[in-house]
């Protein structure tokens, strides 16, 4: 298990979601082991020892957003309720512990919370997340909480501006330090159309890795496919985009085999996009600014409350259509294909981006970069407008 721990420690550092010297893991089979920064490692062990789970990670996020969220929330609350679809679906809400509560309740209290939820925000400690089955699962749950906090914080800033001291400076650090320019420059793509299965498999795996390496998406969330004449080659469900070797399912267009039962939950969307247009490849991920911006709706006096599921309108962000729709068989498979054809790009409310390439992945990848960059710029423009109206917090 030590090899797994060091692998996911490195991933937390590489994807800039945790601070290298503030990461600790605990894992147990018939014995408990802990590793990493000593203070958090002790905590990780104390908590995991009380849980029926295989692994636990405790780390300080590389951004203070989760902590700010906790401090911005009124004192009666005990959890944050993100609005993005991924979190709604898989995490529901995210409990947090304020410093004083944690000091009073200790690992006992934290274990109780983690007995109910996959991850918890602990003021002063960071994000603590549990993996029932594997070390990877603890990493994934950490990553989900980090993503949810990121999206929620950016949304809340647009709505309410800065509220507490330290926020503007931290936000500047984020914008000028943590965020990297997003670009496809320097990446090598195979020229399509790809027809050989071996070439397709290798290109899908390569491009999956690009999306993560360039900071476009988080490792675990998203899916990617390439079609040949009679087959869709699609990443498997619960596969990491940067580790797709051996995790790509060939799914025939004709209903001749069900081996693709392990394919991505968005298989239906991919299939319909291929069937209704001229795309050869599809890229889907959850770039953070795109997720944030997809939820900024200007429609006034709208009666719809569950926009992420029920909104019937097509909006546009920088020319990219935005539609609603649940994951999987729920709805986006119906709503995305009709709007993605023209531009080869579509946003799904509170979820992420689909882009296509008519020839190969170069086009799809650049399109996703463009969508995310547009959303990023638009976000900062709107935030500047929002904060202009307010005096900085003392």
């Amino acid at each position, binding site marked *: 298990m030590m090899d797994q721990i060091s692998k996911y420690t490195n991933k937390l550092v590489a994807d800039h979601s945790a601070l290298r010297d503030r990461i600790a893991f605990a894992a147990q089979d018939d014995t408990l082991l802990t590793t990493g920064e000593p203070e958090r490692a002790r905590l990780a062990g104390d908590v995991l020892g009380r849980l029926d789970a295989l692994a636990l990670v405790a780390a300080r996020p590389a951004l203070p957003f989760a902590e700010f969220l906790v401090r911005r929330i009124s004192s009666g609350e005990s959890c944050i309720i993100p609005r993005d679809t991924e979190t709604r679906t898989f995490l529901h809400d995210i409990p947090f512990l304020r410093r004083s509560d944690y000091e009073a309740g200790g690992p006992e209290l934290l274990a109780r919370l983690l007995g109910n*939820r996959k991850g918890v925000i602990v003021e002063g400690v960071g994000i603590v997340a549990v993996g029932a089955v594997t070390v990877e699962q603890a990493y994934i749950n950490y990553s989900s909480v980090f993503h949810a906090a990121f999206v929620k914080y950016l949304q809340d800033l647009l709505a309410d501006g800065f509220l507490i001291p330290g926020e503007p400076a931290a936000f500047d650090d984020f914008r000028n330090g943590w965020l990297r320019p997003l670009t496809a420059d320097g990446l090598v793509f195979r020229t399509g159309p790809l027809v050989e299965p071996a070439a397709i498999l290798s290109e899908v795996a390569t491009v999956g890795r690009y999306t993560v390496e360039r900071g476009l998406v988080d490792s675990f969330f998203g899916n990617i496919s390439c079609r040949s004449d009679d087959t869709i080659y699609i990443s498997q*469900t619960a596969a990491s985009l940067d580790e797709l070797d051996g995790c790509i399912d060939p799914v025939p267009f004709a209903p001749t085999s069900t*081996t693709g*039962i392990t394919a991505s939950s968005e298989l239906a969307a991919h299939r319909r996009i291929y069937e209704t247009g001229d795309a050869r490849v599809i890229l889907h991920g959850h770039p953070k600014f795109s997720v944030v911006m997809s939820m900024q709706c200007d429609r006034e006096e709208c009666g719809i409350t569950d926009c992420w599921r029920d909104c019937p309108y097509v909006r546009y962000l920088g020319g990219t259509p935005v539609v609603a729709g649940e994951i*999987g068989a729920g709805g986006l498979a119906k709503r995305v294909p009709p709007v993605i054809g023209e531009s080869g790009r579509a946003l799904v409310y509170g979820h992420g981006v689909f882009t296509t390439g008519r020839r190969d992945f170069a086009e799809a990848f650049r399109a996703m970069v463009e969508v995310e960059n547009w959303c990023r710029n638009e976000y900062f423009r709107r935030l500047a407008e929002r904060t202009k109206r307010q005096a900085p917090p003392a």
Partner: protein
Amino acid sequence: MNGWAGTILKVDLTSGRIWRETLPAEILHAYLGGRGLGVRLMRGFHSLDPFAPEIPLIFAAGPLCGTSAPTSARLAVVSRSPLTGTICDCPVGGRFAWSMKSAGVDALFIIGASSRPVVLRVAGDSAELVPADTLWGKTIPETFDSLADAGSVAAIGPAGENGVLFASIMMDGGDGGGRGGLGAVMGYKRLKAVVVNGARTVPIADHERLENACQDVMRLFRASPVIFGELGIAEYGTPALVDLIRQRRMVPTENFRRTYFAGSCNYSGPAIRREYQPQRDGCYGCPIQCLKRTPLGEQLPEYDAISHFGALNAISDLSSIVRATTICNELGLDAISAGATLSAWGEGRGRFLTADELPGLLADIGYRRGDGELLSLGSRRVAEQLGTPGLSMSVKSLELPAYDPRGAYGMALAYCTSNRGGCHLRAYPLSHEILRKPVATDRFSFSGKARIIKIAEDSNAAVDSLMACTFAFLGATLEEYAEILSAVTGMEYSPQTLRETGERIYLTERFYNCDNGFTVADDHLPERFYSEPGSSGDGIEVPAIDRARFDEELQKYYRIRGLTSEGTFPYPGFLGRQP
């Protein structure tokens, strides 16, 4: 009381007495219902011979049955298995559980043995035993038909009447009912059927909270490729697994001599669809509807049945396999044990069955005539009598289902630690080893599996006590179901408390088994899996299982469970400390 009826209906078939008792609230809270409740009610009876008149046969529903909670209209039949000698629970679907709850009872507790065939009829608050001499000998569909007017039916067929050791109990509108031969226990009691009907509704503490939690579950179902994906089980039923398990090269073939069967493409999900244009069916109120029927209403086989009448017996003819399943459903035979007993017999005598021989031999088993007399005892006894005990591909005498353990090491361990014998559903490692949920694990590695299996056994014991469906948990988790249970009952449950409940149930079962002499010696796979490799190919290497590594992981499992290295309890007073 919300959720639970709080009442049990007790029947003594020897004396004909029928009475209701209140179920203590603390027992219901501590064991939930279904499997857990049934197992708790077996305390003190667990060492009785399965064919002793005093042995209880228990039908127990869960607290969610009768509510809108997805997949919860199921119940557990619990007793001691005549096939394995272990405690045995069979989760089954259909309408029966719902109707039983409508009659205002959480469970039926049936002891004694009638001197003549009877049917137990429960209609609302009244219940009676009705002579059933004319029904004795009837097939299950015939029995359902003649009793349908009186309510939902659970019945045995000729196999149960004749004491076939893997006879099942079938529920109308339900899935193929159950493993371990509890149909024979019912047959020994001369109880042909139970009919239930009622009009009560289940009180729910918080409707809005329940509605929200149900929506969370449905959202997860829709996000799950296995459940509602276009290649998933709602579309194709469990035969959706045929192609996948072949591709993974872990199809038990020719009595587990090989792990790849090219002929399985004849009975894959798409092949069945082409041949039969199946319609959806399933448990009452279940949104998934994973059972499939022909347009004429004939039930199509599920994955394990299809694979065991297929690859395991080297048969690739779909119509013969469907016919074989139909016979099992008519006579009340567990198709998994039937298929595996036939394959052991086939290997033992040096020739597997032909497709033509299959239906006749299954009927012989059901009526215990000709070769069927011997085969009705299950593969372990058959193989022993043939002088080749190693040919029984079973653990604790329960025939293994259609996943070769050489292709998934968590499965290998789970077969051995299952309290009812070689069963994949107790820990359902297929979920992570093959279907990648919640995350993928390395199927060819034992690393971490001891704890993973332990956790999953506890979780599933809770699930089987809520009587939700195992498949639901390919999408949802205990988080959502704890919320549902809290909403229904008005008491707060969490995933962690549910797992703790599951652990109590699991250990109780294990304790009963240990009490009956089971030890580490029974927690082992047949020798074949440690000495013969599977069918490698397509870049997938399928070696034999490393016995030393298996033993090491089994010992880890015991330590995590708090058991001795013999797999037994370090202290005798376990039961006394449980509610």
